[in-house]
């Protein structure tokens, strides 16, 4: 970057950007200037980062500590298992996550994987249909008018209301659960993709017109990259909804899965396991969200 500017300078000689490389050179110089050199250089080098990290971590630690102490207090005055009891139970559960003792008694690892599998299939199919549909709705006003009333009617329906339809059509619990995931996670992707396509800046579309680009090039070079951030937001919302719904769906349909596990442990009155399940659902959801945020950040322009 610096080299490019310098080269440009030689040619253009604009005094304004001369300041830039100079400023860049000054920054490292400031780091070297402290006269005391006895500190280990590594600590010195990352001092700002370390201070920043501590500053960011302290409130998190306090928050968690407060949460756990409130939990412990509540537990002391009720039948709710306390943090320590739950922790010991969790160590037991996670020490052997992949055991199999018959269809209704399997390790938590299997339960999570089965739930993730259902979410993956249901959400994947929703993405395969929802994103292209969203593109077409965003691009063609007629299609948008056609689908708008149906989408606004079906979108607010509670996900579990679709379960009986799934059971009726598929006559089996597992596809019915996947169907619920599909139908509840498709809406954010359709709506966000359509908005993304509609919001593509007119400047870019003018470029397409002036360059006389083919419809395919308009799609691959302009519409798709321009609306990608919106599409990724839709995907993120969808996967959040899917993970939210799977627990409820599995409670009703049974089989192996984290939602069924919660219900099973309720029947066994093993409350520690229910709390472990709640934390596990939360953590997996958080990881899914973070993963998608990471992908989304790669496609931020400007």
């Amino acid at each position, binding site marked *: *970057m610096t080299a*490019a500017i310098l080269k*440009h300078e030689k040619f253009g000689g604009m005094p304004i950007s001369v300041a830039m490389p100079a400023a860049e050179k000054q920054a490292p110089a400031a780091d070297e200037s402290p006269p005391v050199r006895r500190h280990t250089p590594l600590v010195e080098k990352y001092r700002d980062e370390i201070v920043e990290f501590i500053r960011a971590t302290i409130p998190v630690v306090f928050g968690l500590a407060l949460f756990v102490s409130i939990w412990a207090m509540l537990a002391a005055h009720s039948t709710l298992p306390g943090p320590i009891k739950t922790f010991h139970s969790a160590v037991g559960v996670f020490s052997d996550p992949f055991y199999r003792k018959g269809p209704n008694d399997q390790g938590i690892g299997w339960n999570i994987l089965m739930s993730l599998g259902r979410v993956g299939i249901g959400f994947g199919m929703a993405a395969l249909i929802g994103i292209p549909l969203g593109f077409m709705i965003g691009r063609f006003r007629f299609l948008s008018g056609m689908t708008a009333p149906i989408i606004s009617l079906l979108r607010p329906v509670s996900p579990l209301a679709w379960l009986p339809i799934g059971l009726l059509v598929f006559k089996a619990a597992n596809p019915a659960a996947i169907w619920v995931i599909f139908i509840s996670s498709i809406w954010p992707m359709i709506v966000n993709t359509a908005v993304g396509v509609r919001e593509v800046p007119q400047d870019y579309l003018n470029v397409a017109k002036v*360059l*006389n680009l*083919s419809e395919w090039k308009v799609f691959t*070079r302009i519409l798709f*990259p321009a609306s990608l951030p919106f599409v990724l937001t839709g995907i993120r919302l969808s996967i959040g909804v899917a993970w939210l719904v799977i627990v409820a769906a599995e409670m009703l349909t049974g089989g192996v899965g984290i939602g069924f596990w919660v219900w099973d442990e309720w029947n066994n009155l093993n409350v520690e396991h229910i709390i472990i399940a709640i934390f596990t659902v939360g953590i997996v959801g958080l990881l899914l969200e973070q993963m998608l945020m990471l992908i989304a950040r790669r496609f931020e*322009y400007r």
Partner: protein
Amino acid sequence: MERFVAVENIDMSFKTKHGIFVALKDVNLAIREGEFVTLIGHSGCGKSTLLNLVAGLLVPTNGVLLCNKREIAGPGPDRGVVFQNHSLLPWLTCAENIYLAVERVFGESESKTQLKARTLKALDLVQLGHAADKRPNEISGGMKQRVGIARALSMEPKVLLLDEPFGALDALTRAHLQDELLKIVAKTKSTVLMVTHDVDEAVLLSDRIVMMTNGPAATIGDIVDVDLARPRERLGLVNDSRYHQLRGRVLEFLYQKQMRPAA
């Protein structure tokens, strides 16, 4: 006079919430091949509308537009447009942005190697060969605008249309790019139609300055022939009495005849 670009009896009106707004009324203009014409006027006088008509982005309400004896029926590669806000696609590198244009115009008749050579040639023309693999957000505003110019020129257009191309730049960068544009146009012998609101820019660059009256129903108020010898030197013109005379005529038109009430 040979009419390379012809604007004949153009009326342009837009439908708005408050009824029909007449932007242009009875505009006639002819541009010779290789001529550099600027459109100048107060903001809102319809100069950009006129440029967009020639670009084919707008369709006139009345009248005919011709380019190289053919009616303008929409945007086409024979007219390269440079927008005010560069309009580069941020997800493509500078070279890819230009390649997109090159591929569209020459893709059917030339090999990929030839297309790439054209892309690099266009970048070299604006002295940006070193920025080929940079994204638009990694280069300065002036550099972006130069890539925009390179993209327009890479299509080898018959006419280059510039819509306030330097309007968003600081004064020093603007002067620098004006000098650059003078050199490029001298080299490529392009026919240019440029919208500006900068009097010095207009006098420095043009063969003719088309001055527009205030809207609504704007039209061409007067045309100044800039008979300064080329190649023109910014510093040489500082003491040129003819330059100041021409500059005075444009200023007089803008600030006396077409004085705008303070907006």
